């Protein structure tokens, strides 16, 4: 009898716990009430798009994090001063009435906002909000991590150091016009203003929201938050105050949070998701299915995958070793067998679509015999042992295993050490990772975004590259302040030749393409050109409502 009572007691306790926790508040973050949307006569309007995210956004404050999910939603909730034209890398005004004009010395930019701009709560968007946004990013108390977009502005450093509370280089002319003065000429400055983290916030609402801003922000983008059930779904609805008349077409976007890739794909197959970035593991199956293969859409984002050899590691201090590894990796084979040809072999750090991309770069041809000779010349005829550190990731692991086998052919015994991502990031940023597979997805389509951020001696330790060449530094520094694009391209190409081909500071491997699968009733899908996984929802419409 006692055993039954014990069982009964356990179940009763569980029931009490359930009833108690069941009394807790709901987990919905609500903003406003669902407004009745007027249905324009145009057949493109209406419907709900079912989308999916791999994880709940860690917050929606684009100044405080640069996670893909946050940027992705950032493009829907907020607007930037300039944006990319359709799916191209050309800029066009977004909140601006026209593209900014710049003084002949390249220091002062004049901006003019569109008239009658409003945030989704109906409050006007003026120069004051732009200034507030820029200053908020730079104030230490914001805990922002994306200051880099506004750092070229005069006085930005003083704000970051807490020495100033106002941005010296920002001058409001009137509600619609303002001027920005830079510390020194910086060619890609206007490009920086198109990055989602440069989205404009409403001054009053942001200050009023305080710490809660990241959970419930207000923007001037095509959509606004209707509901956010954390780790379950986010519902967006049309912003009726959006400045582009009659846009967007789709009334609601329902984003399910599905962390498992296989589950996400099954939901697409069941018709519960309308558009999906195809997970690597699912691509071969979907591409070989006669029904699904017709729904696959290709996008060419801006990225480069490359191998890093830490120059603080004894073996990698010899350029002949670095070159031997470059020649031992069969990039074509990896691309064909592991990526199903979803990309192109990289022959430089700069990829197609980036000004300065040099299609005549020779690349590092696969030549294991020559690689062995180089290793012997460097004093390692029998190779050596080295440890590859990577964050746990099946796709990267497979590629590393392939490279491991290729390096074995020339006598290098590469062990693979998989770590959790936080530990790995810290090791990488501390310059401790011996050798690894790296990648860079461009923030902006400008060579500076690659060359400065990866190969400049102030940045390369954070990548565990630890490369330092004063000539390369000088070329990169000169190129970023030059306003002559042709001159800049020449300097970047020269720096790339020295850093990649003479010094083999990194080994370019490939540029990957993205593949999406889209239900046939979703029309006019247009992708963000830099590859933040976002679509241009404004132009999308649903044939089946």
């Amino acid at each position, binding site marked *: 009898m006692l055993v039954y009572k014990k069982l009964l007691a356990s179940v009763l306790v569980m029931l009490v716990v359930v009833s108690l*926790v069941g009394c807790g508040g709901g987990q919905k973050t609500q903003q406003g009430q669902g407004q009745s949307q007027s249905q324009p006569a145009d057949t493109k309007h209406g419907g709900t798009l079912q989308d999916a995210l791999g994880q709940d956004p860690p917050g929606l404050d684009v100044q405080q994090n640069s996670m893909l999910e946050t940027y992705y939603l950032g493009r829907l909730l907020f607007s930037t001063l300039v944006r990319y034209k359709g799916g191209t890398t050309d800029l066009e005004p977004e909140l601006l009435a026209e593209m900014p004009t710049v003084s002949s010395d390249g220091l002062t930019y004049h901006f003019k906002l569109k008239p009658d701009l409003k945030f989704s709560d109906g409050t006007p968007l003026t120069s004051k909000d732009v200034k507030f946004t820029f200053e908020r990013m730079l104030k230490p108390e914001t*805990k922002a991590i994306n200051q880099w977009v506004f750092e070229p502005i005069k006085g930005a450093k003083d704000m970051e150091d807490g020495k100033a509370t106002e941005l010296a280089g920002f001058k409001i002319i009137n509600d619609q016009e303002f001027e920005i003065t830079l510390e020194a000429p910086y060619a890609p400055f206007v490009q920086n203003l198109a990055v989602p983290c440069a989205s404009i916030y409403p001054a009053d609402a942001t200050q009023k929201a305080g*710490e809660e801003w990241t959970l419930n922000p207000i923007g001037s983008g095509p959509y606004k938050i209707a509901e956010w059930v*954390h780790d379950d779904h986010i519902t967006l609805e049309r912003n009726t105050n959006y400045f582009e008349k009659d846009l967007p077409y789709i009334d609601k976007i329902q984003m399910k949070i599905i962390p498992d890739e296989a589950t996400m794909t099954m939901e697409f197959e069941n018709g519960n998701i309308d558009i999906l970035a195809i997970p690597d593991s699912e691509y071969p199956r979907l591409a070989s299915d006669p029904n699904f293969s017709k729904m696959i859409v290709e996008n060419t984002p801006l990225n480069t995958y490359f191998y890093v050899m830490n120059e603080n590691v004894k073996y990698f201090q010899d350029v002949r070793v670095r070159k031997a590894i470059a020649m031992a990796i069969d990039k074509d084979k990896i691309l064909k067998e592991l990526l199903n040809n979803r990309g192109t072999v990289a022959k430089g750090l700069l990829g197609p679509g980036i000004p300065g991309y040099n299609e005549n770069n020779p690349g590092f041809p696969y030549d294991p015999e020559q690689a062995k000779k180089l290793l012997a010349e460097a004093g390692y005829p029998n190779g050596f042992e080295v440890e590859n550190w990577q964050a746990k990731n099946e796709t990267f692991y497979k590629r590393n295993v392939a490279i491991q086998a290729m390096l074995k052919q020339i006598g290098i015994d590469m062990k693979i050490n998989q770590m959790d991502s936080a530990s790995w990031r810290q090791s990488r940023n501390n310059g401790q990772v011996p050798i690894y597979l790296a990648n860079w997805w461009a923030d902006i389509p400008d060579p500076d975004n690659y060359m400065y951020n990866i190969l400049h001696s102030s940045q390369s330790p954070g990548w565990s590259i630890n490369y330092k060449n004063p000539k390369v530094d000088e070329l990169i520094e000169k190129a970023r302040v030059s306003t002559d694009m042709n001159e800049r391209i020449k300097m970047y190409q020269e720096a790339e030749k020295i850093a990649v081909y003479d010094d083999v500071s990194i080994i370019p491997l490939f540029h990957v393409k993205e593949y999406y699968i889209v239900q046939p009733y979703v029309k006019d899908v247009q992708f963000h050109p830099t590859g933040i996984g976002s679509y241009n929802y404004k132009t999308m419409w649903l044939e089946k409502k």
Partner: protein
Amino acid sequence: MTSYIIRRLLSMIPVLIGITLITFILINVVPGDPVVNMMGKRVDAQTIANIRHQLGLDRPLYIQYFDFLFKAVRGDLGRSFYNHQDVMKTILQRFPATVKLSLTSMIVAIIIGLTVGIVSSVKQYTFFDHSSMIVALMGISAPVFWVAIILQLIFGLKLKWFPISGYSGPEYMVLPAIALGTRFAATIARMSRSSMLEVIRQDYIRTARAKGLSERVVIYKHALKNAMIPVITIIGLQVGGLLTGSILTETVFGIPGLGRLSIEAINNRDFPVIQGTVLFTALVFVFTNLIVDISYSFLDPRIRYDGGEG
């Protein structure tokens, strides 16, 4: 009884302090800085220092720990480093999903496991016995995520009987409960079968049969009660495992539970959320144990907690 409860409550204090201290040491010893993790690839020492200061991570560790402890006593578990949400509020939002999943899977497992175990023991060496024990062995060996995907493929994608993922109604709980409960059911089935077989060979069962009692009465009234003792022990041990072991199930089925919250917090090194979820789970365990122990005395008069017991 009152003095027993007071003693038990007081004994929880060092347990909980110990758990928070070990967690605090572990998250600070394990490599992986929360700010570096937030920064991604952009390395800027000044920004990292600023954010560390804003989050209070530049203070001496003992101050950080006592700050956490004193606030936790007042029910303030701090705010997430990432979304600045109140940690206590977040935990209370996520807990119901985990409890529902755990409880449903426990009920499914007990019903299936006990039925299969008892029938197998009564019909020993029959086809049912052999086949059910092979299935149970497979159930114990099968990883949760594998069972989950198979269930999704068959009952979600092909037959379309149940939703593949989500958390909107009772029908969304069916596949996750079976996935999480399968291994548990298999364990119960095997344990109850072997326990029953042991008991039905005892002399008092032979005596009961000799008295002319029907087989039904012998099995359900005399054998089952005694055979259940080890089974109950297993069930009791598994309840805790179910509460915390739902991480994979929650991930595969997209259920917004406590398991997913804690694993994401660990991956992101979101210290307040890690500390909060560990402390909360520990609290649930110690209180559940206390309540179960107290309930015994109400349900069975033979159990008394006075006179220095406990």
